[in-house]
């Protein structure tokens, strides 16, 4: 099976390249890739879910806004997510259900904090299924 996502190296920070059968799936895999930087994905149980709605002016900023919304939920509510169902998806709007649980320090070994998804190197590519790229400020 092809990889869902891979890391992009950067001197100070880290990026994610994510793939999918279409862009919608690549968005979900980018989110999984992002949480894999924070903690082992396998350690996140599906205990709770959150509904997420994001709007932006174009599909690249939608990608940044989507990931930044999840970073905010992690930072403000300590929520870790490992599975994402993007139920509605357009160029400037998405609605999703994210499954996960709050951080439990006895089980979750947190690796790195993410300040934000940046717009540097941000890419959404629809050719050959879906491929997206994003660089985080760590």
């Amino acid at each position, binding site marked *: 099976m092809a990889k869902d996502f891979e890391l992009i190296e950067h001197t100070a920070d880290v990026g994610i390249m994510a793939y999918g059968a279409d862009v919608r799936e690549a968005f979900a895999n980018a989110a999984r890739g992002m949480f894999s930087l924070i903690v082992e994905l396998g350690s996140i149980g599906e205990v709770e879910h959150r509904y997420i709605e994001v709007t932006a002016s174009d599909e690249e*900023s939608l990608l940044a806004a989507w990931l930044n919304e999840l970073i905010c939920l992690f930072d403000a509510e300590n929520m870790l997510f490992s599975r994402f169902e993007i139920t509605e998806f357009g160029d400037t709007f998405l609605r999703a259900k994210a499954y996960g649980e709050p951080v439990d320090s006895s089980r979750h070994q*947190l690796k790195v*904090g993410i300040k934000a998804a940046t717009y540097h190197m941000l890419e959404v590519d629809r050719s050959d299924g879906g491929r997206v790229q994003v660089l985080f400020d760590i």
Partner: protein
Amino acid sequence: MSAPWKQVLNRVNDYCWEIPTSYTEGMRVPGRIYASEAMLEHIWQEKVFQQVANVAFLPGIVPYSLAMPDVHWGYGFPIGGVAATRVSDGVVSPGGVGFDINCGVRLLRTNLTVEEVGPRIEKLITELYNNVPSGLGSKGKLRVSDKDLNEVMVKGSVWAAEHGYGDAADVEVTEDAGCIRGADPEKVSAKAKQRGIPQLGTLGSGNHFLEVERVSEIFDPDAARAMGINEIGQVLVLIHCGSRGFGHQVCTDYVALLGRVVQKYGINIPDRQLACAPIQSPEGKSYLEAMACAANYAWTNRQCILHWVRESLVSVFDKSRREMGLEQVYDVAHNIAKIEKHIVGDNGLDVCVHRKGATRAFPAGHPDTPEAYRKVGQPVLIPGDMGRGSYIALGTEEAMQVTFGSTCHGAGRMQSRSAAKRNQRGADVARALADKGITVKAGSMAGLAEEASEAYKDVDEVVDITHQAGISRRIVRAVPMGVVKG
């Protein structure tokens, strides 16, 4: 064959190199990189030239897009970038400040010596680790209301001092007296406030730290004395952190907002992370008012942490603050935009100086240099990496003339985080530090490996260039005894 950068750069002097506007069409001004010839090869490989060139696209930039010797590849701006834009018709760019608004460094001096602290360093580091909330997802021990948070945003360090965390003497020796005026909490989103409330009074993770260090060299005894640093072996404590999730969200919100208006203002930028708006526009003004809130939050944060550092020292050494001479030396911001007056050409000009991983370095006699340092210049605090040490420098007149009163902010990263982790494990890093007599307590071992010495440029070399170039004067070098990492 000569190095590829030689075909691009024009040598200004041994420590300054110019990227001409012909490098990329759209540059409004040339770029200038402060570096030794030996460092340029690495800087070239790092794609820094292109980032310096991209910043030169910003409307109203004068007269160069600048890079300090610790420069490395960032997102949008390079880390170590300085850009001044005309207040009258130039732009402000949130990416030129970064997500960690007013990330900065604060230095506390003691009159304790290495002989006194050495035997109790493990106890002290443990006490600091327990007393200063740190690490990913940590919550502060402060309980602040929405109203308190609004006051923090407006008052900065003064709020902390009024609530018993330090005092007016600390505030006096803080950049901008720990408060940028004109902060408007209305310009900050509910999300930023939600992230900010539980994190006030926390160190955070990543490259943030508390370091107990000892003075290892004094280059100018008179200037050092002005900062209360009198002898080799004197113990200091360095605090490095910023505005936490509060500042990250402010930047996130405004990069998105300004990204939507660049077209409206007819601005051409080569990288979306350079999103910007005219300083005089409603969006530009709102960003500066929100940024001031985050900057003030960061100063409050460091002020509270300073207080807990003092408490920890009092507890471990069973002496009073006064007996140990626990006075703040200074506090600098190194991710910030400031409206300042500078001489450009022959005229005074109001400019917005973006310092993205760069430190203000104002000279003796400058009205913004605190009274205590008016005769010697503003202290510049330059942390290195965990193993090699840090510097205290002073601002200079030369910096005012060539870098808008700015100098480097640290050593600068050289290795990616994953490369650092591949090359060394956290446990090995801890052992290597222990072999050097440095005690470390870290929230995450992987995090520790990412911050290994080898991942950074040599701070001695970086500071040597700023000293030789005259943009700050090297005064004191200190080496770590113990470190708390988030």
